[in-house]
């Protein structure tokens, strides 16, 4: 059962324009959301995160928006650069229990291509 969904497998954007990657989730217990970026033959690297008590978090060119009522979050990249071409994974986390800490539930990823 996929609790985190990224419905767009791929996205192509011109350099300098805005890239918008979307993510939906079903589990209302999720309280923290993250975006990871993955280049081929490398492991995912953490990009940006947002707590459920916020609706926006910004870090340089990257902004994540959270709409809790719609169970939807999005990652905006402005301006997009060719080096941003990668697979972007949305992940959501909920506290399992006091002993185990947090587990990440990943979406299937969106492959972003930024063309010059």
């Amino acid at each position, binding site marked *: 059962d996929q609790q985190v969904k990224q419905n767009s497998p791929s996205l192509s954007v011109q350099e300098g324009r805005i890239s918008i990657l979307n993510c939906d989730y079903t589990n209302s217990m999720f309280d923290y959301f993250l975006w990871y970026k993955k280049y081929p033959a490398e*492991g995912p690297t953490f990009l940006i995160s947002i707590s459920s008590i916020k609706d926006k978090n910004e870090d340089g060119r990257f902004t994540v928006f959270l709409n809790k009522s719609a169970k939807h979050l999005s990652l905006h990249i402005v301006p997009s650069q060719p080096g941003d071409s990668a697979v972007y994974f949305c992940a959501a986390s909920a506290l399992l229990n006091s002993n185990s800490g947090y587990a990440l539930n990943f979406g299937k990823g969106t492959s972003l291509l930024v063309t010059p």
Partner: protein
Amino acid sequence: EAGVAQSPRYKIIEKRQSVAFWCNPISGHATLYWYQQILGQGPKLLIQFQNNGVVDDSQLPKDRFSAERLKGVDSTLKIQPAKLEDSAVYLCASSLVRASYEQYFGPGTRLTVT
């Protein structure tokens, strides 16, 4: 700071054979995770260690998969016997503390079962 190390990077085996993967987390990171990423899917957590104790292995197929982290540092994930559907990238990640959302991933081991 050195990242999460994994070996081997690639492995090809026949079904019913055994295979083992090794992970060395970032120095000082108490929490270690093993994920399975099947082609076209996101990573799926298999097992989570806190130091040398297992805190979550609910999604580990225990009839064929096993993992250990004996000294609370390195970890080994084993599959015995392998099935075709085990073909995937096996990712190891670590985090500084248990209650940390931000996990640092290694490059992964790509397993092909023929």
